[in-house]
């Protein structure tokens, strides 16, 4: 693990030496996020988002544990207990708004983190395992976020649970039985609410465990960097502490500023008004929409409107799950040895199209299902699948990458106006 020039942990005080012999926990921290972890010197701000995601999870766990002390997971009183948190619990409004908006912040930084990985080829060898574990974390987050949204037991909670568990009824033959088994009834009710609460409390700790594996797997090859070129020597790296702890401190400040602006000045901006109406199984909302972070996947689901061999609903469900599961195969779909899109002009162009495509899917997912929006959604969904399953493997074979810098240090010096062997060779 790590590079030969990594600094070694050398405790000076007798107490720390004693601790290091019995339980080398400080050594572990030193090697993981301290001076013992050499990191490429050229990371840009997109490399802040891993730490921010970890911070967001920590904040969610802290606010969530305190909220669970006041929340009552019972369909008869859940909605009222949330209102009691908002009105009668000391700083309860702060805890709840921090938790609800914290979920949005968590998903936001994770989406940027994933986009960073796609752009700079962080999913490629030797970091496939880091990527695979990352997709597992993303799936766990989605499950946790969905179940958390059900807990306030508002109209969108109830009908969202109804729609999402309805996916399982698309499975041929056994679908309806599976749906009833998952819900513990024919429709979401107390049994479903209780199990969702139990799992919503459990899964963040599972996520934390997988994050430890994610970081462990990352530390074997070390971090990727904007050039995608391997670290060649000591001059290419700086110790994580103090260099990246200082940079991450600044990143945390900016993150907290955005987060605080949401909590204190626009806490309901990302929520849906219908969730301030108590769940009512007899009254279906005019538009059932998930939270913003699920909208692109919801758009894919809604785009499959034609029965072809199997029913349209089953196509939609397969496509929606498939749109995420295909990420597991990404390291093998993209066979290009070049990591960073900065040196892959064609891939870069298609990736930028994909970014706008996902934003368009997000718009369609939340918009009214009129003909124009359905057409947009169908085209955007088709591009999404074509991008990963057809275009990407083709581009990897046909593309001629731009010349790579010989090393990270060379790329850095070139950026700062120094001459480089590559430039000299061209001249």
């Amino acid at each position, binding site marked *: 693990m790590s590079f030969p020039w990594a600094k070694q942990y050398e405790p000076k005080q007798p107490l720390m030496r004693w601790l290091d012999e019995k339980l080398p926990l400080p050594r572990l921290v030193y090697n993981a996020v301290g001076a013992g972890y050499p990191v490429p*010197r050229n*990371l840009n701000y997109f490399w802040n988002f891993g730490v921010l995601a970890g911070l967001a999870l920590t904040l969610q766990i802290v606010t969530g544990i305190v909220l669970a002390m006041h929340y009552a997971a019972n369909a008869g009183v859940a909605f009222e207990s949330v*209102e009691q948190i*908002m*009105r009668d619990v000391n700083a309860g*409004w*702060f805890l709840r*708004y921090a938790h609800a908006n914290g979920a949005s912040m968590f998903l936001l930084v994770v989406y940027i983190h994933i986009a960073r990985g796609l752009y700079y080829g962080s999913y490629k060898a030797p970091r496939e395992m880091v990527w695979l574990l990352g997709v597992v974390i993303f799936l766990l987050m989605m499950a946790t976020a969905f179940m958390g949204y059900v807990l306030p037991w508002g109209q969108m909670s109830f009908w969202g649970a109804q729609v999402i568990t309805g996916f399982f009824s698309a499975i041929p033959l056994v679908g309806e039985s599976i749906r009833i088994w998952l819900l513990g009834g024919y429709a979401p009710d107390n049994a479903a609410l209780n199990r969702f609460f139990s799992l919503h409390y459990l899964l963040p700790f599972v996520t934390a465990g997988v994050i430890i594996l994610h970081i462990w797997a990352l530390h074997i090859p070390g971090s990727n960097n904007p050039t995608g070129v391997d670290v060649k020597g000591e001059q290419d790296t*700086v110790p994580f502490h*103090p*260099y990246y702890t*200082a*940079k991450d*401190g*600044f990143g*945390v*400040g*900016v993150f*907290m*500023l955005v987060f*605080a*602006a949401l*909590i*204190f*000045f626009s*806490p*309901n901006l990302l929520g849906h*008004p*219908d969730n*301030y*109406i108590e769940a009512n199984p007899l009254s279906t909302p*005019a538009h059932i929409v998930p939270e913003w972070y699920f909208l692109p996947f919801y758009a894919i689901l809604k*785009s*499959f*409107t*034609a029965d*072809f061999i199997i029913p*349209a609903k089953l196509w939609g469900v397969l*496509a929606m799950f*498939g749109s995420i599961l295909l990420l597991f*195969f990404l390291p*093998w*779909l993209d*066979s290009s040895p070049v990591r960073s899109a900065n040196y892959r002009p064609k891939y870069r162009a298609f990736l930028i199209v994909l970014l706008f495509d996902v934003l368009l899917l997000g718009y369609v997912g939340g918009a009214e299902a*009129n*003909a124009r929006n*359905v*057409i947009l959604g*169908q*085209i955007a*969904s*088709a591009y999404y*699948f*074509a991008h*990963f*399953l*057809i275009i990407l*493997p083709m581009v990897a074979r046909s593309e001629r990458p731009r010349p790579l810098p010989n090393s990270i240090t060379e790329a850095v*010096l070139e950026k*700062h106006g120094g001459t480089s062997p590559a430039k000299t060779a061209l001249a």
Partner: protein
Amino acid sequence: MVRLISYLVGLAFVGVLAIALFGTVSSAISNPAAETAEEEFHLHPHDIGLSSNGFFGRFDNRQVQRGFQVYKEVCAACHSLKYVAFRDLAEIGYSEAEVKAIANQWVIEQPTINPETGEAATRKNVPSDRFPSPFPNEIAARAANNNALPPDLSLMTKARHDGVNYVHALLTGYRPQPAALVREFPGAKTPAGLHYNPYFANLNIAMPPPLTSNGQVAYADGTNATIDQMARDVSAFLTWTAEPKLGARHAAGIATLVFLLIFTFLCWGAYQNVWRDVKH
């Protein structure tokens, strides 16, 4: 092998989407969606600019108290306020004695049981009680209101899009149904027992116009009670009932942002300082 499977799966999804797209386009051409009365005549509320808006927004207690008076004298006949307690009124500037008096004199009493016989009974409200519902249950509420259920108002301004402005627009938006609407959509004529209101989602609302004449409420502070003024005041009151901690939230937010700006600036300085000798 991976590549071949990937092409096949990709082509399957793209192919099915192409079939679906063909279906969507051909049905959109063969029978284009006709505009509905809701799409053409529904109006969006305009901003009423309450003092609780904005970064430094605070409740104007005098206005919120006037709104409470409107709720008490007009809305409370049908609408409950079940998440708000009488004691909460202290937050909008009523003294302890005033809160006690308001609770004590509230027309609808608190359901309880007779301690001697165990039979259902009522008692006078005390400050720790929540506002009692005007109807004992949903069936009674519907029976008294032409089968419509008057919704609870505690969270109304958060439970509708643009809720604060919506409440004001709805209360002042009653008008005769436009002749053009009936001409264009003969089927959309407001049914008997409903009332035309372009701010309501389906244009026809069961609630009869609650604010009908200027001076309907005699404001204790002497403010001229026009319909618009009463609608504004009750919107302000319902903003408070939905978000009673708004003032504290804004104040804490300003302090937090100032703290975080200083924190972030210092972090940026530390970052620049640590990296000053390293090109990156």
